[in-house]
C-alpha cells in the first residue's frame, strides 16, 4: 500500500515536471524565436505575434514549477535535499533567468525608445534560453548519477557541468524551440484569420518547426548514446524497460509533426507536439524507475512519511477535480473572445 502511494506521488511529480516542460517549454520556445528574429526580415511582425501569443499565458506556467518543488520536498524530502545540495548553482541560474524574463517581457511593452526596447528583447530572449537549459541540465545531472544521497559525489561544479547535464540542456533548447515554433504556427494562423493581413508568418514558422524537429531528433540520438556511456542503468530502462514505449512515441510524434508541417496539413499538430515533448520527459522518468537517483536512491527509500504522502495524493486529486473544470471554463472564454473579435 505504501509502495503504491509512493509510486503515485512519484507519478504526480513526473506529471508536474512534464506539464512544466510542455506548457512552459512552449513559452520559452517563443522567447527563443524572438531572440532569433532579429536576423531575418519581418522582425517587427514576428515580435508582435510573439507578444500577442504569449500575453494570455503570463505566469500561470510557473505554477507547475512550484508544484514540482512542493511535491518533491513533501513527498521525497531526501531527494529534494540531495538535488539542491548538489546542483544549487543550476537552480540559482534558472531562477535568475526566470525573473529577468518576466520583468523584461513586461518592460519591452512599456519601453518607449528603440534602444531600450532592443535591450529588453535581448535580455528576454537570452533568459528564455538560460532557464530551460538550466532546469534540464539539473535533470541531466541526476540521470548521470552524479547526485548522491545528501550531496554530490563529485565537486558541485563538476556535477553541474557534467556532459550529460549539458546534453539534457541541449535537448531542452531544441525541444522548446520545436514546440514554440509549432504553437506559433497555430497562433499566426489565428492571427491572420482575425486580422486578415500581414506577412505570411505561417510559412515562416512552418519551416522553422521542421528544422527544429530534425534538430531535436538529431540531438536526442547523440544524448541517447551519451546516456549509454555514462549511465547504463538509465539507458537500459529507456531502451529495454518502461521508458521504451515513451521513447518510441516521442520520436514518432515529432516525426509526425514534421511531416504535417512539411505537407502543410494544419491539423493535430499542436496535440502531437505536446505528446512528443511530454514523451521525451516520460521516457527519461520511466527509464529511471525504480530509482529517483540512478543506482543510489529508490522511490521507496526517498519517500517521506506515508501518512503525509497519502494526504498529498488526496489533496492533488481533489485539486485536480476543482482545477480541471475551471481551466476548461477559462479556455472556453478565451476561445469565445477569439470568435467575437
Amino acid at each position, binding site marked *: 500500500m505504501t509502495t503504491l502511494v509512493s509510486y503515485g506521488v512519484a507519478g504526480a511529480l513526473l506529471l508536474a515536471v512534464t506539464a512544466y516542460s510542455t506548457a512552459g517549454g512552449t513559452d520559452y520556445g517563443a522567447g527563443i524565436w524572438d531572440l532569433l528574429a532579429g536576423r531575418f526580415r519581418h522582425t517587427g511582425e514576428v515580435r508582435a505575434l510573439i507578444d500577442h501569443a504569449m500575453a494570455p499565458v503570463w505566469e500561470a506556467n510557473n505554477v507547475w514549477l512550484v508544484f514540482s518543488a512542493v511535491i518533491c520536498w513533501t513527498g521525497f*524530502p531526501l531527494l529534494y535535499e540531495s538535488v539542491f545540495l548538489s546542483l544549487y548553482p543550476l537552480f540559482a541560474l534558472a531562477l535568475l533567468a526566470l525573473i529577468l524574463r518576466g*520583468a523584461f517581457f513586461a518592460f519591452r511593452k512599456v519601453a518607449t525608445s528603440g534602444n531600450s526596447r532592443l535591450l529588453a528583447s535581448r535580455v528576454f530572449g537570452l533568459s528564455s534560453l538560460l532557464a530551460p537549459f538550466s532546469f534540464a541540465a539539473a535533470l541531466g545531472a541526476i540521470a548521470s548519477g552524479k547526485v548522491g544521497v545528501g550531496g554530490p559525489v563529485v565537486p558541485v561544479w563538476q556535477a553541474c557541468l557534467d556532459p550529460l547535464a549539458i546534453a539534457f540542456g541541449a535537448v531542452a533548447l531544441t525541444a522548446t524551440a520545436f514546440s514554440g515554433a509549432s504553437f506559433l504556427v497555430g497562433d499566426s494562423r489565428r492571427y491572420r484569420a482575425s486580422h486578415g493581413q500581414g506577412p505570411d508568418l505561417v510559412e515562416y514558422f512552418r519551416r522553422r518547426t521542421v528544422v527544429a524537429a530534425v534538430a531535436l531528433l538529431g540531438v536526442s540520438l547523440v544524448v541517447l548514446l551519451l546516456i549509454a556511456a555514462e549511465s547504463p542503468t538509465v539507458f537500459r530502462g529507456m531502451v529495454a524497460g518502461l521508458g521504451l514505449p515513451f521513447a518510441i512515441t516521442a520520436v514518432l510524434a515529432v516525426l509526425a509533426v514534421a511531416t504535417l508541417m512539411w505537407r502543410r496539413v494544419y491539423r493535430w499538430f499542436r496535440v502531437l507536439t505536446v505528446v512528443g515533448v511530454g514523451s521525451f520527459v516520460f521516457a527519461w522518468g520511466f527509464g529511471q524507475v525504480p530509482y529517483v537517483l540512478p543506482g543510489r536512491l529508490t522511490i521507496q527509500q526517498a519517500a517521506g512519511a506515508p501518512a503525509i504522502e497519502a494526504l498529498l495524493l488526496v489533496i492533488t486529486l481533489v485539486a485536480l477535480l476543482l482545477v480541471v473544470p475551471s481551466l476548461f471554463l477559462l479556455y472556453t472564454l478565451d476561445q469565445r473572445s477569439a470568435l467575437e473579435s
Partner: protein
Amino acid sequence: MAFTLAYHIILVPLGVALPLLTVVMEGIGLRRNDPVALRLARRWSVVMAVQFAVGAVTGTILSFEFGILWPRMMGRFGDAFGIGFGIEGWAFFLEAIFIGIYLYGWKRLPPKLHYRLGWVLPPSGVLGAFGVIIANSWMNTPAGFQLGPDGRPINVDVVGAIFTPALGYEFWHLIVALYMTASFMVASVYAVGWLRGRQDRYHRLGFTVPFTIGAVLAPIQFVIGDIATRAVFEGQPAKFAAMEITWKTQSHNPEWLGGVLQADGSVVLGLPIPSLDSLLAGFSSDTVVKGLSTFNSSDRPSVVDANFVHLSFDVMVGLGSIACLLTLWYAAAWIRHRDLPRSKWFFRGAALAGVGSYIAIEAGWITTEVGRQPWIVYNLMRVTDAVNPVDPTYIWIMFGTLLVVYAVIAFFFVTLLLRLSARWRVDDEGRRGDEDLAPEEAAPYGPRPA
C-alpha cells in the same frame, strides 16, 4: 531568504484580500445599478491581476530558495513541514485561473454570473494563506510526529502536524491583518485623492467601502493579537521574553514601552509600566514571566535579536492602537452626522494607514521569525544546521543579486500602478474617449483577453 519572505509578504495582503473588496464593490454596483462602483471594481480587478502575476514570480523564487538555502531542513522535515504548501499551491492555481476568468468575464459573461464566479476568489485566497500558516506555525510549535533514531520524523500524524498549537491564533491574526492592510491600503489611495480636492462620488465610494471593512477589523485584531501574545507566553517562552525584553525570571514583571536591552540585562531608554506584563500575560501581577537569562544562551535569541524583536513588537502594537483610534473617530463621525469625518487630519491619518499597516505586518513578521532564533524549527533544529554548507561568499553574491532583481521588480510594479492610475485619471476627466479601452485591457502585464 528572510528578505525574500519579507518581500513576498508585501504582496500577500492585496493577493488575499483585494478580491473580497473587489467583489463587494461589484455587488454594490450591481445592486444599486451604480456605474461608479462597477468602474472601481473593474479597476481594482486589474491591480489584483498585476500584483498576482508579480506574486507568482516571487512565490516561485521562494519555493526554490527553500532548497537552495535550507536543504538540510527540507531533507529532514520536508514532509511534516511541507504539506501546507501542497494546499497553498493548488489554492493559488485555482485563484490564478479564476482571476483570469474574472478578468476575461467582464465583457463576456452575464453580470450576475460574473459576480457569482468572483466569489470563488476570496476563499481560495484565504485557503492559500491557511496553507502557508500551517507551515509557519509548524516551525514555531512543531508537532504531530516522533523523532526517529536518525533525527527524521517517524509516526507522522497528519492531523497533529497540520493543526499545531500555534495554527489557530497565527491564522486568525494573519488573515485579519491581511484584510486590514489591503482595506487601509486601498482606502488610503482615495484618501490622498480626497485631500487633493477630488471629493467626488468616485473617491467617496472608493474610500468608504474598504475603510469601513478595515475599521471593523481593527478592534477585532486588537483582541486576537492579545490572545496570540498570551499563547506565545505559554508555548514559546523564549520568544515572549525577547518580545518583552525580560532578562530575569520574575513576577510583577514590568511592561517596557520602547527601551533597549543591554548585555548585562539592564534596560535603557524605555518607559516601564510596573507589573503590567505579568498582568497581561496571566491576569495577575503575581504571574511569573520567564526571562532570557533562564535559557541557555545558545538556545535563545541574542540580546541584539531580542531588541530587534521587542522594538518590532512595539511598533506593531503601536500602529494597531493608532488604527483603533482612527476607527473610533470614524465611528463617532458616522454616529453623529451620518457622514465621513470632515477634518483634514482624519484623512491625513487615513492616508498613512495603508503604509502603516504594511509596516505593522512586517514588524509582526520580524517578531515571530527573529523571536524564534536561533531555531528554524523550534527546539528541534537550528538555522545553522539547516543552511546550505557552502562558502558564505556564494550566499552573499546570491543575496546581492536578489536585492538587485527585487529592486527591478519593485520598480516595475510601482511604475505600472502609477501609469495605470494616471491613465485612469485622464479617462475620468474626459480628455480621452472613455470605455473604448476597457481597464482590464490596459495593463501591460498579467493575464488579459486574447
